[in-house]
């Protein structure tokens, strides 16, 4: 290994680490990304785990990736393409299905089959959520101001915040009513929120799904409504709330970022697990790799989650006790499983007809919010859900690169699956049993599903942790609850991508604005570092 000294080294090559690295390299810094695996991507990867099939084996759909980042890093030039998809559906036990369509009028009629009032209410719901998205969108790009600080930067930041919350319509901000709505939305349960709009169980259950994905909260838990917003605030080409596939799988995003980084002179040091961050006099100056090699850099950035960073690679003796304790108490509970399935044919659903666009988007198995809460109860008891909330999609319908001709790839996200089973912990048998359970659930809604399974990868929170490094397998690098958002994310007083260690920064989803393949934490962290280095942050992102 060449004994290069870097300006900045990033620990972990996930999408945020790569984003940070790209911005810094573009600003002319000598940058390296140090990655444990032989490939980069973190939880945004495409992997051929079964010959001929590409799996987006962790994250599976894309909406949140900020278009400004896409543009700044020239990801199109490096091969990234996002394909919007149409529709979503929930399959019901009575043989019917409930679907959303991108066609506004078809969508209305689809909902009206269940309730005319709900079809109308959906417009109002959409408007209200959109309004909240508009409020949150500029906040994503901001470094959260410290409300306890009197530094000009923080005061300006708070004014910026206040601008969006001020009861002055002229600012394009909110009226009084909207401020009440925002505070309610950010704190209430998704069940209570949806109850204010809809009467049909099916409509509510379908919409509530977004609020529990990846979250160790149930639909009745306060704070779950925010998670729904978190999933709605993305966009595909200006269509807020729309989701798409990354052509070639989610790994195309990080592959493009890696190519962009290299084009700007950055290094990727793969296959090099970092065991320790070197700290001297409360300043970090390098890392030690598993093989004993050392890499030195003026500044270090951790893309690892806050727990992994400060409980695993930074020694406790270097940290203030209150900070250490806050990190220990950071909520990062695993609650999700994932199946990646190679199919020999397209599944035939008992309810959704072939060719229906609803079948080409995200498909769910859910009947009611109560069923979802029951699934959460199982999780609390330390069991995988008997009737799990399942979020499936078949990217190969829209993306010709994922599977051999005529064959298909199916991604199955499963909520809830505990990190620890009360019944003796996870074993290989239990993992397979869990997979079988989920597949039999899916099979009962399909004519042919059981006969077309060619290969399945089954992942519990344990596998997510082991492979991706996410503590407890939490997909957001920490729960998206109000106590861990904005200026409290990840730790109060350390929300500005800095840490108690000088020259050590954070850029992962543990930081504001949180999880999802968004890139905003990475871009925000890059901006803070460049400000500290008195360098220009050139971006469409500002």
């Amino acid at each position, binding site marked *: 290994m060449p004994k290069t000294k870097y300006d900045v080294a990033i620990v972990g090559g996930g999408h945020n680490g790569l984003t940070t690295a790209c911005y810094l390299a573009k600003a002319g810094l000598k940058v390296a990304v140090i990655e444990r695996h032989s490939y980069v991507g973190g939880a945004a990867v495409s992997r051929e785990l079964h010959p001929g099939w590409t799996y987006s084996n962790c994250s599976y759909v894309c909406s949140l990736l900020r278009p400004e980042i896409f543009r700044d890093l020239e990801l199109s030039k490096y091969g990234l393409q996002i394909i919007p998809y149409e529709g979503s559906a929930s399959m019901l036990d009575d043989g019917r299905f409930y679907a959303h369509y991108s066609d*506004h*009028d*078809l969508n209305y009629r689809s909902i009206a089959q269940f309730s005319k*009032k709900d079809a109308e209410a959906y417009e109002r719901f959409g408007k209200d959520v959109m309004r909240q998205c508009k409020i949150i969108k500029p906040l994503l790009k901001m470094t959260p101001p410290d409300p306890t600080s009197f530094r000009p930067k923080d005061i300006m930041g708070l004014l910026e915040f206040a601008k969006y919350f001020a009861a002055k319509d002229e600012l*394009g901000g909110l009226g009084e009513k909207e401020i009440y709505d925002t505070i309610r939305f950010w704190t209430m349960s998704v069940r209570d929120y949806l109850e204010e709009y809809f009467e049909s169980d099916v409509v509510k259950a379908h919409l509530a799904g977004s609020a529990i994905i990846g979250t160790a909260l149930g639909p009745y838990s306060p704070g779950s409504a925010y998670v729904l917003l978190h999933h709605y605030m993305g966009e595909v080409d200006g269509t807020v709330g729309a989701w798409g596939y990354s052509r070639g799988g989610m790994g195309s995003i990080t592959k493009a970022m890696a190519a962009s980084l290299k084009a700007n002179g950055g290094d990727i040091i793969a296959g090099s697990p970092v065991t320790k961050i070197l700290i001297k006099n409360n300043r970090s100056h390098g890392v030690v790799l598993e093989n004993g090699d050392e890499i030195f850099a003026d500044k270090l950035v951790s893309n690892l989650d806050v727990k992994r960073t400060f409980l695993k690679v930074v020694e406790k003796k270097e940290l203030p006790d209150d900070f250490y304790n806050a990190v220990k108490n950071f909520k990062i509970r695993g609650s999700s499983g994932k199946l990646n399935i190679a199919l020999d044919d397209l599944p035939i659903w008992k309810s959704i*007809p072939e060719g229906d666009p609803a079948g080409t988007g995200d498909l769910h198995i859910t009947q009611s919010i109560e069923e979802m809460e029951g699934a959460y109860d199982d999780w609390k008891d330390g069991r995988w859900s008997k009737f799990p909330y399942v979020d499936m999609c078949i990217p190969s319908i829209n993306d010709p690169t994922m599977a051999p001709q005529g064959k298909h790839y199916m991604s199955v996200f499963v909520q809830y699956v505990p990190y620890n089973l009360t019944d003796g912990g996870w074993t290989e048998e239990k993992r397979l049993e869990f997979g079988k359970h989920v597949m039999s659930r899916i099979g009962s809604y399909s004519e042919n599903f059981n006969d077309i399974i060619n290969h399945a990868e089954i992942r519990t929170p344990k596998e997510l942790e082991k492979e991706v490094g996410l503590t407890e397998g939490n997909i957001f690098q920490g729960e998206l609850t109000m106590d861990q958002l904005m200026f409290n994310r990840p730790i109060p007083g350390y929300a500005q991508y800095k840490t108690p260690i000088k020259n050590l920064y954070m850029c992962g989803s543990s930081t504001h604005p949180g999880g999802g393949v968004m890139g905003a934490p990475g871009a925000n962290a890059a901006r803070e570092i460049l400000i500290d280095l008195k360098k220009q942050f050139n971006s469409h992102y500002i």
Partner: protein
Amino acid sequence: MDNSFSFTKPLLETPFHERTYEACYNNDWYRWAGYKIAREYSNTELEYTAMRNTAGVLDITPMHKYDIKGADAIRFVDKLVTRNVTEIKSGQVMYIIWCNEDGNVIDDGTVFCFDSNHLRIFCAERNLNWFSDTAIGFDVEVEDVSDTIAALAFQGPLSCKILNLLNVKNIENLKPFYFDDFDLNGCKVTISRTGFSGDLGYEIWCKNEDAISVWDSLFKFNRDYKVLPAGMNALEMVRVEAGFIQPNADFMSAEQALRPNRMRNPFELGMGWLVDLNKNYFTGKKNLVDLKKKTLTKKLVGLDIQGDKPAIGSVLYDKNKKEIGIVTAGMWSPSLKSNIAFGYVDKDHMKIGSKVFAEIYHPEELEYKKIWAECSVVKKQFFNPPRRHKVPAEI
């Protein structure tokens, strides 16, 4: 007409579709409340001219129709709308608007009184939830009957004459803003003397199964009096001339505006005459009482614009080139030979006769001509011929 749900047919067809489809050479469809409605059948100018010269036929089936039934029907509507409707009589129609609690306008429409226990509201936007929520505590049932009634607007100076030729008995004596049941071509229909055109005209309400027969009858005397089906483009022209404003075109419905500052109260829309602050409590009253006392900061007015280039989407300025508002609808009026528009102006330019300026970008063979046109503030009702109000109507 097969309107069963299918992902291959996102749009509904009205009961007139068989005919409108034949007539719509351009196959140019507009989405109205989930229905396919012709934007232009063959030629907008001719369709417009039919409405001003003979008569035009518009398929208005997509209008939302809500039945209000029960002992409190009138009391309910009175709580809902800004106007006093307690004196409404059987056979009478009233133009109404309704607001949210803040006093911002949600929608406008008409209410038909069948009897004191049965009213029906017609409107452009979906209002089932708003009406149902308002109905709580009243002895009424709100029912969406939109899909069960087919509707045509038959508008123009010969509309009464043709209905008379079709043996619609006593149609000439139907007063403006009244309705009754009639026999038309063997079908039992309801006809109201109402419409969007600001001219003599009727709206014909029938059963879905009678739709084709009703449609065909209106063209029966075409050898003598050329009646044309008219599309949405022609409708847009006549409604602007008539001074009728439209939700989500001239103002954002308070139920749909994303940005709170885009909502408008009735005074800003020039609809203060529809607000009765002396009547019993109605939704929005408290805030409308306060708003009435305040000086208006903006108002939707009519504009008479120099030159002949439509001021579509123009920004409005005062003489010092300070931005004061925006045009919401603009057109060259063939009837008035004038360049007319609706626009918002600030408090210093609301009076009739005030002068403002419109910056018009007129496309001319791949280049934009930028025109600085003086505008006079005028009444929104540009076109209002005596024949519209005459009873008995001309036959």
